[in-house]
């Protein structure tokens, strides 16, 4: 199987901190200093307090475990058709939130729910001056 040609992520000002972090090989998360919520996906304010002034970015561990996954054998979309089968998964980060990702560089038979995984970063070829990567995970 060939690698996924990940569709380019587009950032808004709300999500820029996350995507800029990926360009530095960091999984950047958001935390509210007022209510201690760690939230993903990123937002311009704390989803619970609905206030922006207490929200901060921090660099997460990039470690977590597989919550569930599927081995996708059919997806006609550009960037994925040639990569089937690929492993799409939800990973529960050690900081709490769950993120959607793909598990790479492994035999699908070795992947299981609960397996420990570590983030790696697939740099994006871009012509807009941004340095973004797509976070994917490999078995720890």
């Amino acid at each position: 199987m060939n690698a996924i040609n990940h569709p380019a992520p587009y950032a808004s000002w709300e999500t820029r901190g996350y995507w800029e972090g990926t360009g530095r090989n960091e999984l950047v998360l958001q935390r509210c200093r007022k209510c201690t919520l760690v939230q993903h996906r990123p937002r311009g304010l704390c989803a619970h307090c609905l206030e922006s002034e207490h929200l901060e970015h921090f660099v997460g561990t990039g470690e977590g475990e597989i919550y569930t996954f599927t081995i996708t054998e059919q997806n006609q979309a550009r960037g994925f058709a040639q990569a089937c089968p690929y492993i799409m998964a939800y990973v529960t980060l050690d900081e709490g939130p769950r993120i959607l990702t793909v598990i790479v560089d492994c035999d699908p038979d070795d992947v299981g729910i609960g397996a420990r995984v570590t983030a790696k970063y697939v740099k994006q070829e871009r012509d807009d001056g941004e340095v973004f990567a797509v976070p994917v995970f490999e078995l720890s």
Partner: protein
Amino acid sequence: MSSNPFPMNTAIVGVYEHPSRFSPNKTEFQIMAECAKGALDDAGLDRADVDGLFGASMSMGMMGIVDLAEYLDVRPDYLDGTNIGGSSFVAHVSHAAAAIHAGLCNVALVLYGSTAASNAMAIGTGGAGESKNPDAAFTSPYGMTTVGSYAMYANLHMNTYGTTSEQLAEVAITMRKHAGLNPNAKMRSPITVDDVLGSRMISRPLHLLDCCIISDGGGAVVLTSLERARDLPKPPIQLLGCGEAVQHQGVGRSDLLTIAAQQSGDRAFTMAGLDRSDVDLAMIYDSFTITVLATLENLGFCAFGEGGDFVSEGGISIGGSLPVNPDGGGLSSNHPGMRGIFLVIEAVKQLRQECDARQVGDPEVALAHGTGGTIGDKHSGATLILGVDR
């Protein structure tokens, strides 16, 4: 108005399911208009009686309901173009009942039409490509397909409860068996466990035959007050309870196995004052085999983890403890992109005992539950409990 409380003072008086499964020479709106005619004829009402218009489709966007009113040349007093995915039409029925209850309209028409099959839409395995939506940046780089999100749910269910592919196959087999009794169903030849498990893997653990079909089609539902319904030709089908809910990833911590059906179902049963055991048949949105298990469990027809045994012991067959989708469902009868309206139509026809070979005895209470969106990502749920007028 009758003395019944909401929603029991409203009733469904006309339904129509478009018989076609492939309509390459028709538009969505033409299909909807043909369905409107069919349902109004069924109700013994006229286009001019309609003062509430409800509808959604795969292509109706902003102003879509206004476009539909223009196409039908109607000028209703009440419009609702709510689109929460395939469950929309189940929700439209409760919205229509609320509007009738509030006196905002008297005769409500709910419409759906689609040419998903003749447009060769890739519904389950498409839509995962590039997007300029910053919100999609958290899914589109990972190839999230509709079937893929349901497959992640199925895998978690199997891992948590020991549910098997054979048990999921039982749902597909039962729907096909029911479809064999429905002359309009698209896929009518019986299938076996081996057929399902031997069909092409789409997104593990879901095979081709774990996935709904893609057809064209449409339908319509007409509602009015129970009082007026009693003067119309067909026996009124009373609304007994309704509920809506949403489930999503929130801030990244939601329990994937809990779907919107739990919240909307609890609300509908409480409103109706009924128990699960009072339901004689259930119309459950069967986008995939796993959707039926998830919905049965979340609606409380069986405990979490017991859905697999419930279906493999024949519970959902005609003649079982809770017959599900006697029309053959989206897995075998029709699935034109959004299926919610057919859940309501078949429930009504069953309660009126109009279903010939697939008739489920003489039911008094039917439940319809629609899921819109995807249960492994974000989705809506809408539940209706319907009953014969007593």
